[in-house]
């Protein structure tokens, strides 16, 4: 150790150490390590950086991070599972409260009512948005929530097959594969209608059977369009006693019909856009909700906070519930292994939803829809650009195709970047059948000026080819 005591380690002072060692009855701290076999005890320092002072750490990291470009200094049109939204100052303030920030999971509810109530309110507001009755206090992200939902459907129904749309985020599909393979779950793909992107009902009817544990759809879909045949899909699942799982972007639920209103049994999704920063893709906040049905509730993964009273019944309070589902008690028979989750992100989302309220959530959805439709309108007028490729209504994201312009997404992207604009995600490798297509995202933070500039620059790029 260097000449001074480290600010994080109060007992590193020599005299204190000696006093403590005297109490223990040892002469050196190494005596406490005597049971580690000699051959494993490190003989030389590890190859790690020299310790820096707080100021130096700050400088070093700020300098590195300054090499990043952010949506603060470059208009960006990326979404695809992680979305740019404005985060009100209040949200940041609340999640910096160190009583929340530096607490563990609320194992002692009497001293943890604050986080418990905040998480209960998160669960409750998610239920209001999705029109469901039960929500857990978080999964790691949408992708892992999908994996868990599929496994849960298999436990509930005793069947082994999950049907998912062909149009799905490839990373979610990959995680689903990894989560379900060890449980020998079969993933079936349902084709889409070429013209609209909508799930092919015929193909669904061909594939669904009494072996199907669940039908999964995303709304809005990965490629941004609104899945409209929800009643038909729900009925199809119901007819075969399969569960209906719906994946959502909660920012859509001020304007779009909530999945609980069209028969969803399980709702999953990504709540990062409700008050959480993008942070280069993490932490995220997986939504997991279900109907008020004990056969579902008992199989739900993750922590669930419940409202109760004190023992004497004198006062309302909150605690973790149904822990017999969880790994601390149930061990290898637990509904999931998830322990630490994304609680503080859920608090952020609770604050965000409370700030927006019913009117704000509707306005958020409307503003996004206005901006997106305006952008689609402008881009589709550019000769050589097709936006969107599907003849369907879109919410926050849409496809932009450059086939007629004979340009690759990559070429367009590089030229945009040259103009300090970051275009949408290249999906030409994910969906080769859709040609040179990118997925663009527009939210309430994109101004009319930025959208118009995007259209202008794109028009120039396409005309100059």
């Amino acid at each position: 150790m260097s000449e001074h005591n480290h600010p994080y380690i109060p007992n590193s002072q020599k005299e204190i150490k000696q006093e403590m060692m005297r109490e223990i009855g040892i002469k050196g701290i190494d005596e406490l390590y005597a049971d580690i076999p000699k051959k494993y005890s490190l003989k030389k320092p590890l190859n790690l950086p020299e310790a820096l002072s707080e100021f130096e750490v700050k400088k070093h990291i700020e300098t590195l991070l300054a090499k990043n470009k952010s949506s603060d200094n470059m208009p960006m049109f990326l979404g695809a599972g992680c979305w740019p939204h404005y985060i009100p100052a209040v949200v940041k303030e609340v999640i910096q409260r160190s009583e929340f920030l530096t607490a563990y999971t609320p194992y002692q509810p009497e001293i943890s009512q604050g986080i418990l109530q905040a998480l209960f309110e998160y669960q409750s507001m998610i239920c209001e948005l999705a029109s469901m009755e039960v929500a857990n206090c978080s999964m790691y992200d949408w992708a892992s929530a999908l994996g868990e939902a599929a496994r849960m459907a298999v436990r509930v129904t005793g069947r082994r097959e999950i049907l998912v749309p062909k149009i799905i985020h490839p990373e979610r599909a990959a995680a689903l594969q990894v989560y379900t393979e060890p449980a020998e779950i079969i993933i079936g793909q349902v084709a889409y209608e070429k013209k609209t992107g909508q799930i092919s009902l015929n193909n669904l009817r061909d594939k669904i059977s009494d072996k199907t544990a669940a039908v999964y759809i995303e709304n809005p879909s990965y490629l941004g369009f609104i899945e409209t045949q929800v009643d038909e899909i729900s009925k199809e699942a119901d007819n075969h006693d399969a569960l209906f799982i719906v994946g959502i972007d909660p920012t859509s639920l001020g304007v779009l019909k909530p999945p609980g209103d069209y028969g969803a049994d399980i709702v999953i999704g990504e709540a990062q856009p409700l008050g959480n920063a993008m942070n280069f893709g993490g932490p995220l906040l997986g939504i997991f909700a279900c109907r008020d049905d004990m056969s579902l509730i008992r199989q739900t993964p993750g922590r669930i906070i419940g409202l109760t009273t004190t023992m004497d019944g004198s006062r309302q309070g909150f605690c973790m519930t149904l822990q017999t589902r969880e790994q601390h008690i149930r061990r290898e028979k637990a509904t999931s292994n998830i322990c630490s989750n994304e609680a503080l992100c859920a608090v952020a989302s609770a604050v965000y939803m409370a700030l927006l309220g019913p009117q704000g959530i509707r306005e958020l959805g409307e503003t996004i829809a206005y901006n997106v439709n305006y952008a689609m309108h402008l881009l589709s007028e550019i000769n050589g650009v097709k936006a969107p490729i599907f003849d369907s209504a879109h919410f926050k994201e849409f496809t932009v195709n450059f086939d007629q312009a004979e340009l690759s997404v990559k070429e367009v992207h590089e030229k945009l970047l040259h103009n300090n604009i970051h275009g949408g995600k290249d999906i030409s490798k994910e969906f080769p059948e859709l040609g040179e297509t990118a997925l663009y995202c527009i939210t309430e933070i994109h101004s009319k000026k930025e959208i118009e500039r995007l259209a202008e620059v794109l028009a120039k790029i396409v005309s100059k080819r």
Partner: protein
Amino acid sequence: MCMFKQASWNQPVIFNMGKNGRRGHILPKVEEDIRNAIDLDSCIPKHMRRENLPKLPELSEVEVVRHFVRLSEMNYGVDSGLYPLGSCTMKYNPKINDMLASLPTIGMVHPYQDEGTVQGILEILYKLERWLAEITGTYEVCLHPAAGAHGEFLGTLLMLTYHKMNGESEKRREVIVPDSAHGTNPASATMAGFNVMVVPSDEDGCVDLEALKSVVSEKTAGLMLTNPNTLGIFEKNISEIAKIVHEIGGLLYYDGANLNPILGKARPGDMGFDIVHINIHKTFSTPHGGGGPGAGPVGVAKELAKFLPVPRIVLDSERYSLDYNRPHSIGKIRSFYGNIAVLLRAYAYILSLGFDGLKEVAEISVLNANYLMKKLKKIKGLTLPYNSKKPRKHECVFSAKLLKNDTGVSALNIAKRLLDYGVHAPTIYFPLIVEEALMIEPTESFEKEELDRFAEVMHEICEEAYRNPENVLNAPHNTAVSRLDEVKASHPKTMALSWRMYLKKNKQK
């Protein structure tokens, strides 16, 4: 002794607050030209439109702030006081790290940005991987897992994939865990499709070698071990354990929840562990946030590296990039690349301490635990099962069985009574092999004065148990609320898992 008094706001559930029409936040207005150009009604099919607004509360910004500040005042964190929650390593969370993690140059960065525009964060993550590999003695580290249990899931999947590559996955169906293991270990192994075999501990609190020899077989896929284990005891026979597991063709998995006391002292990789997860939110000081987000990176031996999830961060002549071209990769266990804002804090933490500092962290965490253990051993009613003479590492597990027999006061009651003194309770009833367990982990973050006070409070509570057990049995008295009815909370008739469900049930009555 001076007692504590937590704030006890009678704070209604947020749905019972506010007034119709109040607004907590105003969004940017849709610009006039856009409004004129777009007919919103035609943009969303009628039958897909939401009819009724969601029943969210309607509050002003002021009320929202006050509500959540009051809630925070009814919560207790490491910054509030001693938090000796065993196995959870509740150390100080440096403020500079939070500050750096909230910079827009990380917050406003999108995961699909062009690599040229994210060189800074890629460099940080790349270096963090290297440092964690160095600290754990592993070959490559993957930062993707969102928590320890997520890392365990990845780790057990890697076991599965490894055996599959060797054509042995059909045969190797069993993962062994000690009876002292954390519940996530067996739960993770099951998720990866394995059957769980439990191996008992010997009288020293370590894996019983004879028992281990009798459970391993050609069906063994691997062993999951925490070292130091959940009793705070170093598995001194680790060399033999590794040999037994490896000779039979199994892999050795390290649950890194207890890495703190061996930082810079010894490395799991050197001990023969093939797969190692790290709880960043424990050892590397990132705030636990009341239950996450954390991060659970996984380090592996060379022959397993090719199976790690994609993308991998690679460095090619000073340019960092994301490499998806890994044909043997298991794929993905989540979206994107990990809990980056958490990992960034760990990077700052390592930089703030360096090798010497990390070693000091380990040593003081062990010194603190043994110091506290020495003091607590003197308390009537408490015993230290499993070789009470042996030093512990970062934590010690006492039993309150004797106290319970004498007075009726259980580990749970002690935990609740501790809260009255403004001290967070230890972990209780874990590990399962200690009856009436009190698992105490002071970490390196608390000064001797606080440790002394904790010992005094424990002493006082145990004396009180003999003198006036009622008062302990009815604790806590000084927290926001008294003991909660947890049975009611989980009973199908009374269970209220959301405000909606609560209203529905109360209407029925």
